[in-house]
């Protein structure tokens, strides 16, 4: 019988629809896989104790002839930044240990309504602040390609779960690359939608004007299928875009079979020279460009002179908004409370926030408080908002000339756990290529481009499109994916080392 953990969500959905596999069987297989490998990977913070009941219900409904969605019955991992009524939601922080939300995030509610089976909540950097998942208060997640290396961040848990075949699909959130950079280092696919394309309601806010929820998967089509489920207008999120979106799955299918690369104008950013990237990353990137060119794509140099200010602007806007968003964790209504004998509520709040937040969270809150404080606002936050305008103008100028912009998804392959943890500035530079999309609100996708020749670790290639053109990314991404998988003779993840199942599992 097919190992349902190794196939794509689309393939699994076909088996489910055809009655060849039940959702209970598929869910059980993934729970078994989690039990076997997650002790090493630590992708999950919580595994649902009723996933099989949910799966059984889907099977029952299917048997009763009910019309189900295209991926009903497929298991789903959920980043812990998204609130869920049936599982704790901690956003990777001690301050929210055991927190139970009275409502579901919109994307979670939509996933449930579409018949997806939530497997559990995935690990992440605390409040999504980080690029390595090392800043989780619950211990790091490990990269399935090399357990000594980081799985990226902040959504390292979701990417690792998918890469380790613990789930075919996962939800992520991307504030500066937290979906795309983990995809890059784990050989998986992740897409940050156009800002406002997917509801933020129920996503524990990091930086409201940058955060976007999106899909994580092993194939472009799988991300598109999940995006079709979670996307679209939500009246609970004022920044949600009220418009009809095309079918992303249809776009991905069209890309995979058609010749969308022919005549496609692909922009390479002059200001992101190869010298800024690990040689293996750069080489993989160039090879992908050559493959596209061979299919008739036109590689065009575009200028984005303000991208170099992106990281600086990002590390002003994000901490500023985060310092305000994270003020709600004060020990009054929910979450941790540290008692201070004889202390006032102010003392209790300050002691709780000292004990409940990790070092990176405190660092960014203090930085954001500084950036917003009287006398500094104009120089810092105000200027950073102007850089956003300039980066948007860069994008507008480039997209006047090209259909998509392409970059390596991140400067290096997965680094070793602990390597950069004491050097925040180095850590921040990881997001160099992913940040501009968040600042400008445009969509971005990362798909595997191969393994770096210098260290044999996965490399991702990022495509960026104008706002609202998420479908274009699925089309182009699926086209390149088809080319590369063909050339590799199978999915990149087939080359990942087999994980050793541990006796008894982790749970």
């Amino acid at each position, binding site marked *: 019988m097919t190992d349902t953990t190794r196939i794509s969500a689309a393939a699994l959905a076909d088996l489910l629809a055809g009655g060849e596999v039940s959702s209970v069987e598929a869910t059980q297989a993934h729970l078994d896989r989690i039990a076997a490998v997650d002790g090493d990977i630590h992708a999950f913070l919580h595994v649902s104790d009723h996933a099989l009941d949910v799966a059984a219900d889907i099977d029952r409904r299917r048997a009763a002839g009910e019309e189900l969605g295209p991926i009903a019955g497929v298991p789903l991992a959920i980043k812990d930044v998204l*609130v869920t009524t049936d599982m704790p939601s901690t956003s990777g922080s001690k301050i929210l240990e055991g927190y139970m939300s009275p409502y579901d995030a919109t994307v979670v509610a939509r996933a449930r309504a579409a018949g997806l089976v939530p497997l559990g909540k995935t690990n992440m950097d605390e409040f999504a602040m980080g690029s390595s998942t090392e800043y989780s208060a619950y211990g790091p997640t490990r990269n399935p390609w090399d357990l000594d290396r980081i799985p990226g961040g902040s959504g390292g848990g979701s990417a690792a779960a998918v890469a380790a075949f613990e789930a075919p699909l996962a939800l992520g959130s991307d504030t500066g690359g937290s979906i795309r950079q983990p995809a890059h280092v784990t050989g998986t696919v992740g897409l940050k939608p156009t800002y406002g394309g997917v509801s933020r309601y129920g996503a524990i806010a990091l930086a409201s004007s940058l955060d976007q929820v999106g899909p994580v998967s092993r194939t472009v089509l799988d991300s598109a299928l999940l995006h079709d489920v979670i996307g679209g207008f939500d009246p609970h999120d004022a920044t949600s875009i009220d418009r009809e979106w095309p079918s992303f799955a249809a776009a991905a299918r069209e890309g995979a079979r058609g010749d969308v690369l022919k005549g496609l104008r692909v922009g390479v950013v002059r200001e992101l020279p190869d010298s800024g990237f690990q040689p293996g990353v750069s080489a993989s990137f160039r090879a992908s460009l050559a493959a596209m060119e061979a299919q008739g794509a036109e590689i065009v140099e575009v200028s984005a002179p303000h991208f170099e200010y992106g990281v600086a602007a990002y590390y002003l806007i994000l901490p500023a908004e985060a310092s305000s968003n994270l*003020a709600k964790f004060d020990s009054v*209504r929910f979450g941790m409370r540290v008692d201070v004998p004889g202390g006032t509520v102010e003392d209790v709040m300050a002691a709780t926030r000292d004990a409940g937040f990790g070092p990176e969270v405190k660092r960014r809150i203090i930085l954001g408080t500084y950036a917003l404080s009287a006398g500094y606002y104009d120089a810092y936050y105000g200027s950073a908002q102007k850089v956003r305008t300039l980066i948007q103008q860069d994008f507008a100028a480039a997209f006047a000339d090209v259909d998509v912009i392409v970059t390596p998804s991140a400067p290096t392959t997965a680094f070793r756990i602990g390597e950069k943890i004491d050097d925040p500035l180095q850590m921040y530079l990881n997001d160099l290529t992913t940040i501009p999309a968040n600042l400008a609100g445009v969509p971005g996708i990362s798909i595997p481009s191969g393994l770096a020749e210098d260290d044999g670790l996965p490399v991702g290639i990022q495509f960026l499109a104008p706002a609202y053109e998420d479908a274009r990314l699925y089309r182009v991404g699926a086209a390149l994916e088809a080319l590369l998988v063909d050339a590799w003779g199978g999915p990149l993840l087939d080359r990942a080392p087999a994980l050793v199942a541990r006796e008894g599992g982790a749970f």
Partner: protein
Amino acid sequence: MAKDKLMDFDAALEMFEPVLGFEVHVELNTRTKMFSGAANPAHADHHGAEPNTLVAPVDMGLPGSLPTVNAEAVKYSISLGLALGCSIAPSSRFARKNYFYPDLGKNYQISQYDEPIAFEGSIEVELSDGEVVTVPIERAHMEEDAGKLTHVGGSTGRIQGAEYSLVDYNRAGVPLVEIVTKPIFGAEHRAPEIAKAYVATIRDIVLSLGISEARLERGNLRCDANVSLRPRGQEKLGTRTETKNVNSMRSVERAVRYEIQRQAAILAAGGTITQETRHWHEDTGSTSPGRPKSDADDYRYFPEPDLLPVAPSTELIEQLRAALPEPPAARRRRLKTEWGFTDLEFQDVANGGLLVEVEETIAAGAAPAAARKWWTGEITRLANADGREPGELVTPTDVAALQALVDAGTLTDKLARQVLEGVIAGEGTPQEVVDARGLAVVSDDGALLAAIDDALAAQPDVLEKIRDGKVQAAGAIIGAVMKAMRGQADAARVRELIIERAAQ
């Protein structure tokens, strides 16, 4: 609390010029809150809700929750801005005001900062003698209310000395419009009166717009009064204090007077005024120091990233402008004519802040004179005795019903006052009080005649006197009958019946 030294008010005015400023918060009575779908406790349907029963995720800052803007609250705010003579911003924005406090679910208040929805206006405020003062309005902006803290333990129930506090988030997120005046110069000795009249005018405006219950005692309308003094002839403004917690119009007047006298005493003695908030104490009629302004007041305002600009169309603004009720000053002129009151009678009503009450009582069927008499007379007397506002005691509908009972002869004036007390005590509508207390005038002639016969039998000489034409002698019988009827008889009818009897 050390007692403040006060300078005589007139003496203070001789040395110093008072400069006033006001921040009035108006709670809007929309069905739902400013940024959530939770039912609004400032709406008449939800008064007195149990704690934490009117709460949506965003009101208590639950993780993942997001605010959404109430369309109706925006319209109310624009209407109020227009009624204040303000320009409506073609585009305005919400901003976060960051500070930690347990009543603030998110630990920031969504307000407006440098881009308020309404700015640069003025209103005409009429004083007790009919003089009209123009108060310049700087801005009116939309924001949300905070929750409610109850301090438990300690002796006073106040924040000082409390052991712990309880937080109820029902009020968190109630839509507010904050109206900020520019500095008001030239108020002089009328400063306290202008303060009171300003708040009364704001109340009249929001009531006529129907956008707030506007009950000061319930916090629907809250006034912070800024007072500063500068020596005569000095250009530079003095240091101001901001007196909070003034929750009646009478208190606004008293608080401003108090601050003028207090600051004058300090300045005259060579002291300096501390820029601080001060708290008004209704019981002692004084203010006490609150929190001094400090660098902890760094609210780190920034544009609210979860919300988008509010850019009302010209059509909407003009539509709301066309629907505005007449301005209070014009309204006063019209009502005075309609009601046929003398200057003094009208000022009595207006200065008592009773225009709306009288108007609604007349609308409910009472004659203007009767409506005026009740509100400026008995109801005001009872309210003053209780330290409350007349409008808190009884509704215009009940007053009109009460007067109807008098007009129908069911109640004498004296009985009606007893019924009023019953209504105020919460015993029900006037008719219900009449029924429950058995207070109606005895209009059954049989019962009256029986009482008259008893009284005549007891004082046989009186009957003779009446028959001799000394009709005034009937007074003794009337008195006896009224006593026997425990006052529940119409004295005029009793007199008629006595004369009839005597004629038989």
